[in-house]
């Protein structure tokens, strides 16, 4: 069942169309991550769902109840939605306990029951003993957890998170990213999370939305989006990727062979028929390229390559290769030195044709 339904949402600020007619559903218990470059309309989308911004057009339904439609808008406090802000927005004049308890004061709850709830949730986020501290005395990661607890204690139907990890340093960000997913799952919440960090998006998401200038480019699981990007933009934005342009010279139902430049022939597994003689852009992920092994006679998609650059990452290295005058990115633990020649094979099933 869809907890959140967004239909034809549009938001115009003066002359800018911040959101341009987008629609999507979020299923119960899912973590939906909206990812996109700066200014693509992520925050605006979230604020429309929260009720902090009124859409120009479109319908938003939460839990089967229409909360926003043209000429109708339920105020944010009545939507039953929780939100974690990028700045955390912890109230500086209230202690950790008071921050978390604030929302409960308006539910008909005895003081003891409320206290129990707050203590319980603080324990779950690992902040027992911090009840009487003021937010300014907490570290970034701790503030983040208070912000989450403050929303989670109300058990909202839907939790919205606006780049809550972007204020943390790299190491903590990775750690909090995993913890955040665990905590959201632990509380059994449905969440919409936005970020401009594609690695964070892939790590957190059950489903991802890729946005660009107010429009949705692709919706899917992280795997789908990584392996079958819908277009050039998505392929380039999500994960590392190399691109080649070629002309189809042989085609059949399952695959086509492309001529790239004068000499390089590449077979590609295709899902739809390709017009012979047509031009296409091919996207190749680093894991689609295998380095090493001896040259085999008559093997397809086999080339000699020269390493141009190595970035050593511990478990493996990222290589930039020169393959017949084209530059390709590949991952391997083969420990090549720069300038060294090697054999590479490109898996026909891991090459995707991307429009535009």
């Amino acid at each position, binding site marked *: 069942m869809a907890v959140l339904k967004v239909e034809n949402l549009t938001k115009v600020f003066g002359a800018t169309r911040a959101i341009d007619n987008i629609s999507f559903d979020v299923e119960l218990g899912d973590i939906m991550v909206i990812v996109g470059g700066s200014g693509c309309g992520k925050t605006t989308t979230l604020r429309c769902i*929260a*009720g*902090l911004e009124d859409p120009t057009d479109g319908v938003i339904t939460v839990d089967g109840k229409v909360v926003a439609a043209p000429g109708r808008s339920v*105020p*944010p*406090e*009545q939507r039953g*939605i*929780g*939100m974690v*802000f*990028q*700045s955390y*927005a*912890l*109230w*500086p*004049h209230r202690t950790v306990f008071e921050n978390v308890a*604030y*929302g409960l004061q*308006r*539910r008909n709850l005895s003081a003891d029951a409320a206290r129990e709830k707050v203590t319980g949730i603080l324990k779950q986020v690992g902040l027992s003993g911090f009840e009487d501290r003021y937010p300014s005395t907490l570290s970034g990661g701790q503030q983040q957890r208070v912000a989450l607890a*403050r*929303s989670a204690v*109300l058990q909202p139907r839907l939790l919205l998170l606006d780049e809550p990890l972007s204020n943390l340093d790299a190491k903590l960000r990775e750690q909090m990213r995993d913890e955040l997913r665990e905590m959201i799952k632990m509380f059994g919440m449905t969440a919409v999370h936005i970020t401009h960090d594609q690695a964070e998006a892939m790590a957190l998401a059950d489903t991802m939305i890729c946005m660009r200038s107010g429009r949705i480019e692709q919706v899917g699981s992280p795997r789908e989006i990584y392996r079958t990007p819908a277009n050039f933009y998505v392929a380039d934005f999500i994960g590392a990727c190399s691109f080649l342009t070629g002309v189809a010279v042989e085609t059949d139902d399952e695959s086509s062979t492309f001529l790239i430049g004068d000499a390089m022939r590449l077979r590609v597994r295709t899902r739809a028929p390709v017009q012979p003689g047509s031009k296409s852009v091919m996207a190749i992920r680093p894991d689609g390229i295998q380095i090493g092994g001896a040259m085999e006679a008559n093997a397809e998609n086999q080339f000699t390559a020269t390493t141009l650059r190595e970035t050593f990452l511990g478990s493996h290295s990222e290589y930039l290769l020169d393959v017949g005058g084209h530059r390709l990115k590949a991952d391997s633990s083969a420990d090549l030195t720069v300038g060294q020649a090697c054999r590479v094979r490109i898996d026909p099933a891991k090459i995707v044709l991307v429009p535009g």
Partner: protein
Amino acid sequence: MLLLVVILAPVASVFYGSFRTGPPGSPDAGFTLQNWVTAYFSPSYVSALINTVWLGATVAALSLVVGGTIAWIIARTDTPGRMQLALLMIVPLMISNLITTLAWIALAAPNAGFINAYVRGWTGVRTIFNIYSFAGIVLVHVLHYASFAFLALFAALKSVDASLEEASYMVGYGPVQTSARMTLPLIAPTIATTFLVIFVFVAENFSVPTLLGTPVGFQTLPSLIYYNMAVTPSQPNLAAASGTVLVWVAIIGTILQRRFTRHSDRYVTVTGKGSRQREVRLGQWRYATFGLVALYLLLAVALPYLALVIGSLLNFLTPNLRWSAFTLDNYRVLFTEDNLTAVTNSLLLAGGGGLALTAIYVLMSFALGRVRGAWGRVTDYVTIIPTAVPALILGVGLIWTFVGLPVPIYGTMAILMIAYFLRNIGYGVRQADNAFNQVSGDLVEAARMTGASRLRAFLDVSVPIIKPAIFSLWTMLFIFIFMEVSATILLYTPATRTMPTVLWNYMGSGSQPRAFAIAVAQANIIFIVLYLAERWFKTLRTSLDK
């Protein structure tokens, strides 16, 4: 809209009146250029203008030197007791320079001044320092405005990103070179702005040059304007014309200052991380720097206060402190009916009026924040006009605006409130803006996301956060109104007299000890208000942080 009329009408009527032969509305008045010719070209007016500019520039420069040195000592060295000294450094600014002037008359009047008499007894020099002189006027102003320069430069020094200076150390410069090559250029815009602000304040002040300069023939434009207004036969139209000269001076100063402020935002990089600047270790010298700051406080607060207390207990101003010279009469006079009216009026205007103005400025800030765009900018600029118009001229303008109106405002407390409202509008709205800016939108929205209505979120989040800033605004308005003399002096009537006007009149009629008694009472009330404000709302502490 009404606001615009209220703000612009007094200024317009000053310009109109400056071209008339009689007050606006009088039947036999006609148009004339004579006032402008006199005000802009006659030798005595030109020399008053030169005096004004010269005085303003001298005071601004010296205040910056004194205030800047102290700011550096407190912000950047390991001088003992820095924090306490910093809080005390705010006090001179809170005591009006009229009161400091009285105190220094008691200390350094040529014959009877305590210091002069004391030094005479020691060395036989007749007068070591005569307060009735250009140097005397400069001294009183500098003692007052050094405190202002301190606050501005202290804030600037604190906000300079420490890493910029550290980078300078890392490329091999010592503390002195770093201060000269990095820190000074970084705070240069603040220095320029502060110079202009002090300049404008000094250029429009009439009370100090009137008391200390007029007896020796030194006139500034404001003292001349006051003379034209107050001394019969009064020449209000001529006063208005020379007032326009002062308006130009003030407007040019304010425009320049705004320009520099824009730049200073660009230069001064404020670190959110609160990185601490390096402290210069002074060794034994730190007692010398402590002494320097203490000396300033002695000259600006302690000695004047002592002189006022002693002076207020005397029958007449004399350095021969025999028992028979002492009396409590001056304080007894405070409790006569007339003077009690003044005390009640002052407390009422400063307390109740200050509170009302606080509320109005907060509402204005709230409303102006809403109307963005062109209309908002117009209003924004209009609110700085009354701040640029000298108080004395504002007084003239208000008289002319309201004296002809059928509504009975002239001669009431209401006209004083309008004057105070206009005088402080720039400061008040800006402070209220700052208060609101402390509450980021996120904080309010976060409350709404936990189920609070718009009103609840305002009450639970915005109000507690801005409360200290609002109370501090009230405190400052209390002090400003309580000390106000420049506009009040032209607008009050016997029923609406205030403590500063009574004090002024005692000075005029030569009853100096009585004036001293009022000054002591005023200073004590200010001390109490400041103490309570610091105690409850940390007013002084937060003004140091800004």
